[in-house]
């Protein structure tokens, strides 16, 4: 068992980091909304799903197949912009339709949670029953494959571990987006508003922060990150489905909690940690145990650090 683990260590680490980067980007959306509204946005997984379909639509419309070099970078940037717009836009609409009316009437957080679950089902069924069939000409419940747009060339090998182009693109893109978001929250006016609202919404209002704008921006930023994640996901696994967000959403939420919910850098750390744990655990005990291992470690970490590895700190620390 141990020998096997060592043999596969390299490949599992590369795979774990790739999956972890995607978890991390989706986790950002959970973490930001939680930081600002103390609400778990269960429909965030569907925001991600919408991003995958937006990207797939563009790939199919333009007949993109296996671009190389600069063309690939161009395609990637275009897809990311489209998916960011689609997911970000959907997140803003979601906030407008499912959360704002409740918030305005001072409903409890529990009501918003139920509304989130409802919105999640609504969006899934909307894609399954109404949108997919006419747009993609495949039955709505089917898995839909995507042509390749991220290269599979081997860049370098460590031992017999091959690091392929798409691994690097995904991890690097995730880290870049992470830095951009981090800087947005630390350095811009909107970012200051977000941090102020997270710290103390009432005082923030008294200080002249427009809460509605801040909440909308939070959803927009979180949704846009899910859009980036969606493009990277589609590039890596090359298929999507109406319920693709569900399991990934659970994992991303876990990553957010693991890193410290409400903490942006924690989301990144949590994402990578969960991706690696899953793969290492699966190599050691078999894939059937994959989630058991990952979640056992989660429980142990939360026992010693109840607020996650880096703690809850959208408001406090520099992030």
């Amino acid at each position, binding site marked *: 068992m141990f020998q096997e683990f060592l043999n596969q260590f390299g490949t599992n680490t590369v795979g774990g980091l790739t999956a972890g980067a995607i978890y991390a980007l989706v986790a950002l959306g959970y973490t930001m909304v939680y930081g600002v509204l103390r609400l778990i946005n269960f429909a965030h997984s569907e925001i991600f799903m919408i991003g995958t379909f937006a990207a797939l639509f563009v790939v199919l419309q333009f007949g993109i197949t296996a671009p190389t070099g600069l063309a690939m970078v161009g395609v990637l940037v275009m897809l990311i912009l489209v998916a960011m717009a689609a997911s970000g836009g959907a997140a803003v609409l979601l906030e407008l339709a499912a959360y704002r009316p409740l918030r305005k009437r001072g409903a409890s957080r529990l009501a918003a949670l139920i509304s989130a679950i409802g919105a999640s089902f609504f969006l899934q069924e909307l894609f399954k029953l109404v949108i997919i069939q006419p747009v993609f000409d495949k039955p709505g419940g089917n898995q*839909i494959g995507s042509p390749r747009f991220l290269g599979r060339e081997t860049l370098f090998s460590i031992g017999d571990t091959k690091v392929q182009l798409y691994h690097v693109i995904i991890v690097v893109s995730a880290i870049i987006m992470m830095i951009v978001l981090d800087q947005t929250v630390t350095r811009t006016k909107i970012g200051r508003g977000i941090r102020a609202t997270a710290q103390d919404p009432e005082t923030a209002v008294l200080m002249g922060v427009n809460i509605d704008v801040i909440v909308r921006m939070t959803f927009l930023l979180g949704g846009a990150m899910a859009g980036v994640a969606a493009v990277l996901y589609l590039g890596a696994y090359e298929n999507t489905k109406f319920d693709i967000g569900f399991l990934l959403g659970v994992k991303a939420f876990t990553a957010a909690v693991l890193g410290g919910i409400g903490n942006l850098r924690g989301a990144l750390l949590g994402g990578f940690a969960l991706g690696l744990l899953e793969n290492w655990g699966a190599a050691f005990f078999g894939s059937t145990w994959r989630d058991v291992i990952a979640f056992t470690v989660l429980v142990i970490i939360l026992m010693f650090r109840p607020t996650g590895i880096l703690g809850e700190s959208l408001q406090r620390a520099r992030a």
Partner: protein
Amino acid sequence: MRPKLVRLGGIAAAGMAISLGLAACGGGSGGGKGGEGATELTIGVMGDLTGPDRALVIPPANGAELAVEEYNKKNPKVKVKLKRYDTQGKAEQAVNQVNQAIKKDKIAALIGPAFSSESRAVNPILQTNKIPSVTPSATATDLGKSGWKYWHRVVANDDAQGPQLAEFVLRTAQPKKAFMLSDQGEYGVGLAKSVGDTMKAKGVQIAEDKVDAQASDVSSTVAKIKSFQPDFIFAGGYYSFTGKMLKQIRDAGITALYASGDGSVDPALVDAAGKEQADNVVLSCACKIPFKSTATELKTFADAYKAKWNTDPLIYGTEGYDAANAILKAIEAGATTSEQINEKLKATDFAGVSKQIKFQENGEIATSLIYVYKVTKGEISLLGEADKAALQ
């Protein structure tokens, strides 16, 4: 408003059926179940026609309808009407439908039900009413052991597939190390175990892994396969899972022969895996699908099917056609009651499109044939019977 109307309609229909039934008993020729001297019989075809698994049921239903149409064109003494009964894949719905079929439509025989769970629920009712059934696609082994006297099927049961596929691969590819991969469902795990056990008994070194079919990242499993360096990989599960695995396995540079069972015999496998990756793949199925076969009987059937339905016959299409023909030949030979059809079915022996149609005492098909298919660069083609075919 609507439910009320439907209910009223139902009552009216039931009323009509009763009066028709009375007329039939009085020596008329209206009712489907007929009796001596009937000029038209109704037979049913039952299965999931609108539910999630309709892709498995629509081809056999269409095949059956084609058979009935061809039969009626011959201007036989007794014409046949085919009626479709939709179960949406649910056993309780199947029971409702079969009751309606017997009481209202007075079916003389039934093609189906399509699935094993439906068959378990429906067949006891058919036995009580002495109505023969021929299923094109229910493959659970226990159905043949239920002692039903009016039940038949035109496909091999589940016990046949795993061992026959394993034997085929052993004979044609002589693997030394085989990797058994499966989703975590009953069907996939069971089939992988059956293939693995057969190979192990012949001295092949086996490793295995079970993967959550929903999981998107399977890199740890791919790493495991890679380090085992198998020359054969079997994947148990449905096409969305086996296709996804195939894609990632090929992308990791593993070129070993890859095989899967009847849950993957679908062009959607190629969609999920990609054309380039769907290569050097073998699929097995108790069903016989023509794809682009040039064999005369398959081509004739496929052309007629395409002309009528404007699509190629997929899974269980030929079996639906053969199941209908088994019943139609009984009627052609002069059977006009359910009981007579059942008697004639016992003696049935003709060359169907899928295979020789001849039943055992318990209703099982006489020869348990498994067919193998090959996928090359995204094209699926029929190789032939598992015990004879060669792997080109």
